Structure formats: C-alpha cells, structure tokens
C-alpha cells in the first residue's frame, strides 16, 4: 500500500535532445489505479520505467510511500511490473516463473508454494503450472505475467500495455479482470496504454501525456466533459471529437451557413482572436429535418445500436464532421444531411495554443 509521487521528474535519453519525460508531476493515491495514456512516443513507457527503476531520473524526484527512490535500485523499490511482452522466463515452468521473485528473495518453500498456488487459483492457472510459457496461449501467458507480479504482494503494480498482444475479445475480458483484481487487492497501480478506451474504462484517474508532458490528470468523466486543451479533447472519446477552426461571426462562430453561439465567458476569453477552435462530440450533433448545417455524407458506419456518419460541409469540402445517427439509419453515401449543433455541448479552444477558453 503506497502513494506514488512524481515530482517534476524528467528523463533525457540523449543530452541536448528533448526530454522523453519532461517535468512530470503526478500523485497516485494509495490503492488507486492510474492510467497513463497518450499516443505512441509520448513518454508513457519511459515514465513507468522511471518508476520501475529501469531508467534513471535525470531531474526531479520520485517518491514511493514517502521515500525518495531516485537512487534506490529496482529490486528494493517493492514494485512489480507486467511487461508488454510479458517477459516470461522461457526455460521455466509456469510455477517456476511465478515462484522466481519469491525464490530470489529467499522466501521459504512453504510460503512460496502457498502464494503461487493462491495466485494460480485467482488467475485460473492451476492446471497449467507444469507447462512452459511456449505451451500457453496469449491470454494464459498474460495471466502468468500477472501472477508473477501479484505473488510478490508489492506496494505498487506497474503495467505497460499488458493487453496489447491479445485479440480484441480477450482484451475486453482481461481488462475487466485486471480492474477487478486491482480493486480486490487494493494495490496502487500505474497502468500504461495508448488506447483511450482502456484508459477511460479502467482508470480511477487518467493522466494524458503528449511529447513527454502531462496534459491533464483527472477522472475519466472530467477528461471527457472538460478537456483542458484541444489535444486532450481530440484524444479522448471514440470516434474523436470534431475539432473545427471557425471564423468569428457575431456572438459566435460561423459553421457553414449557420451561426453557432458561444457563451459570454468564452467570447471574453477569446478576446479579439479572429478564429476559435470549436470541439463538438459526434453525439452532440444531431440530424434534423430542415435547419442546421448542410453536409454531404462520405461514409456510413452502422453499428446496430447507433451509426456514425462521416460527412463534409456542403459548401466547404475541407471541413469534415462525424455525426452520431440512430441505429439502422436510412442515410446513404452521397446524401445531403442537415446537422444541428447543441450549443450547450460546444467546447471552445484557443486556435493558436489549443488551450480551453473559459471553463
């Protein structure tokens, strides 16, 4: 049980280059599951490896349970990690893989056996204990990697994209299992993924990274409802939020041939900028019978319960929109639709900096 604190921690791989992790400050509360999410190359793995002790911390501090661990080697940090590749020991059986950390710590045989058996029970690995990793399926290997982490009963779990080698169905199942297990064991967990759906569904809180910098650290619903900048807005949510650079007109902005009103605070903080970046989620756009922006449908994605219409504005090819429609929609490719914007649901960002206007 422990709290993890990144305190302006940085990692610079090559002197002079931009830091892979740049002044990261983040507090993970005791027992919390925090997800680090961001596009590939945003420094998620590096941040996790810094916490694991596999990368040095070039600047700043890192505390686990109040203890500064910058100079503490991995094995003394009381953490366990699940690697993306699982990093199972190929020459050892499942049992020996899971018992390895205990054996290395000189734990007595009976206690080793008790813990390994218990973990195998929890993870449904009991019948595979004698197998070598190569004789296991992807999902089973993943569970062995989890098992090797939980037998340690560490203060903190680290997981680097543990689901990325599984097929889509397994991924959804395992996602729920991991979240459930984490709840039950109540161990502080830092979880890395590039998949925002995983982040939103698993995280108590989610930290969005970009180019080594923390963009926003908040609960999933807060991220969804109040993204602090256009990057977070576009990254969180699927399909992604529509982000449009629109010219100012009157009390709002002009989208095709309609005006989208902006709230007063937004107008104030936008100042006299000539354009504003508007963010609208597909579900906040609706099809109407008459009024609304005219758009031409390029692609119809029918999901059964709902559909997504990818369209471009009738009078502006370059501006594209994703609109959520009803399931079994009758709209077809090439049709012109009218789209109504819910003004209450509009996010506005500074066109230059991407920062959120007002709050």
């Amino acid at each position, binding site marked *: 049980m422990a709290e993890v604190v990144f305190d302006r921690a940085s990692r610079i791989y090559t002197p002079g280059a931009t830091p892979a992790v740049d002044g990261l400050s983040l507090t993970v509360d005791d027992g919390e599951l925090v997800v680090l999410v961001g596009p590939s190359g945003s420094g998620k793995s590096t941040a996790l490896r810094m916490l694991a002790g596999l990368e040095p911390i070039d600047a700043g501090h890192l505390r686990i349970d109040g203890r500064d661990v910058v100079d503490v080697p991995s*094995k003394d940090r009381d953490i366990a*990690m699940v*690697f993306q590749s699982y*990093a*199972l020991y190929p*020459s050892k059986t499942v049992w020996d893989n899971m018992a*390895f950390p205990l054996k*290395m710590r000189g734990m007595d045989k009976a206690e080793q056996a008790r813990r390994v058996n218990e973990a195998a029970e929890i993870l449904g690995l009991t019948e595979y204990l004698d197998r*070598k990793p190569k004789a296991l399926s992807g999902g089973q290997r993943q569970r062995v990697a989890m098992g090797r982490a939980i037998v340690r009963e560490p203060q903190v779990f680290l997981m680097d994209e543990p689901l990325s080698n599984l097929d889509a169905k397994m991924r959804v199942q395992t996602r729920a299992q991991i979240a459930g297990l984490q709840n039950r064991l109540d161990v502080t967990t830092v979880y890395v993924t590039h998949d925002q759906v995983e982040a939103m569904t698993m995280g108590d809180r989610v930290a969005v990274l970009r180019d080594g910098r923390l963009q926003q650290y908040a609960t999933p619903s807060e991220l969804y409802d109040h993204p602090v900048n256009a990057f977070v807005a576009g990254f969180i949510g699927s399909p992604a939020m529509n982000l449009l650079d629109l010219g100012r007109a009157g009390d709002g902005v002009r989208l095709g041939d309609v005006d989208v009103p902006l709230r007063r605070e937004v107008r104030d903080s936008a100042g006299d900028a000539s354009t504003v970046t508007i963010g609208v989620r597909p579900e906040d756009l609706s099809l109407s019978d008459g009024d609304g922006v005219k758009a031409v449908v390029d692609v119809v994605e029918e999901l059964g319960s709902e559909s997504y219409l990818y369209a471009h504005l009738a009078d502006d090819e370059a501006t594209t929109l994703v609109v959520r429609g009803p399931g079994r929609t009758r709209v077809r490719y090439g049709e012109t639709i009218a789209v109504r914007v819910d003004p209450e649901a509009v996010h506005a960002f500074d066109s230059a900096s991407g920062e959120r206007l007002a709050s």
Partner: protein
Amino acid sequence: MRRAPLLPALVFTIIVTQIPFLLTIFYSLQSWNLVRPGSQQWVWFDNYVSVFQDSQFRGVALNTVIMTLGSVLIAVVLGLVLALLLNRHFVGRGVVRTLLVTPFLITPVAAALLWKTTLLDPTYGLVNFVLSPFGVGEEAWISDFPLASVMVALIWQWTPFMMLLLLAGLQSMPTDQIEAARMDGAGAWAIFRELTLPHLRRFIELGTVLGAIYLVNTFDAVYMITQGGPGTASANLPFYIYQRAFLGFDIGQSAAMGVVVVVMTIIVATFALRLVFRSFGAAEGSH
C-alpha cells in the same frame, strides 16, 4: 522433375564422396602394402580385427577424444567469458572484438607454426619469455606436454568462433527478461545462472557439435607441432591413419581404420546433430 536441375550437383557429390568411400571399403578388405608390389590380396576382415587389437590405435582414439572434446569444451568456456565481456559497452569494443576474432581467420597451418616456433619454443618462445619472471626456465612445452601443446593451438583458433556464436546468442536474448529478473530481485549471478545459461544452451550445443565435427579431423596442428610424437603421444586418428598409409604404406590397414573412424563419426554426429536440431526446434516454438 522440378528437382532435375539439381541432378548434376547430386552426381558430382556422389562422385567425390561416395565413390572414394566405396573404394576405401574395398581396400580395407585387402592386404596391400605399397612397398611390396604384388602383395595385394583379399583378406576380408583381417584388417578390422587387427585394428581392434592394435593398442596404439586405441591410444590414438583416446587422444582424439581428449583433443576434440577438451579443445571444444575449453574453447566454449573461454568463448563464453569473452562473449559476456563483449556484450557490455566499453570504449574500443569494436577494436577488441576484431582483435579477438583474428585467430579464427588465420590459416591453421600458419597458426600451428606460430605456436610451435614463436610461442612455445624452449629458447626463443614468447611463452617462456613472459613466464620467466615467475621462475619458468627453458621449459620445452612441446616435448613435455605434446598433446596439451596441440590443444592450446586448437583452442586458440576456436575460441573466437565460440565467442562469436555465443555473442550472437547473448544479443538475441530479450532485454525485458533481464529487466524483469532484476525487478524480481535477481543479482547478476542469478540472472546468468537462471536465464542466460538456459538461453545460451542451444548455442553452446551448436558450437560444441560444430567444433567437434571440425576438430575431430584435425591434421595440420598435429603435423606441424608434434608430428604426433613423442611416439604416438599426441597423434590423433587422422594423423595416425596418414602415418600408416603414407609413411608405412599399409593401404589395407589404414583403409580399415578410416572406415572404422567414419562409422564412429557418423554415429556420434547423428546423435549430436539430433540434439541440436531438437533444442533449436523447441526454441522456435516459443517465438
């Protein structure tokens, strides 16, 4: 029919390998000494009987086993140590690696000559020169330790091969396994014993088998350094057969020995290769 274009190669291979072997078998069934023209006659298995009764042959066979396995195993151990060193980063690693590989690039005859004259010579040898501060005088390494002297030259030549093979093995080892082990609390020695050695096992097996297949045929080093002497103290089978055939002119006897050696080699090599293919085959499945 698709394989028809390969036929010439097959015919060629048969001509240069199988026909000489059949001839060897033919000669081995005859008594034929070149020094006594007209002595050629069928004796059937007499030659084989005397091969197995020949205590020199047995001694030489033992020498061959010691020389082959001893050299290969020592070369593997040394190669492993060097590979572990080269697998770390240090300034000048590229140069050191090149220097360490050079013994393997030298013609075996030249290497043997180098060991015989420049290094192991009692009066002028560098080995005695280097060891002189430790009280070693004009030690005649080659006459006192003939078999060991030959083996030293062989080991010197083959260590780089083992080193390269094991270095490739080390570099194919996934780093995340080592990182995982480090987080699991394993120290350097535990990582080596529990992960590196099992991973290297198939490379060690391959190196041992390949090295043994080459070294069992050693001729140049024996010929150059000791001429198999004193007596047959440092002779191995190829050299002994050569002696019997081309110095003793006993074609029948030496052909019989040759056949015995080939049969034994095939048996040993079959088992050894099967072992290697099995462990590589097993490893394939894990990726």
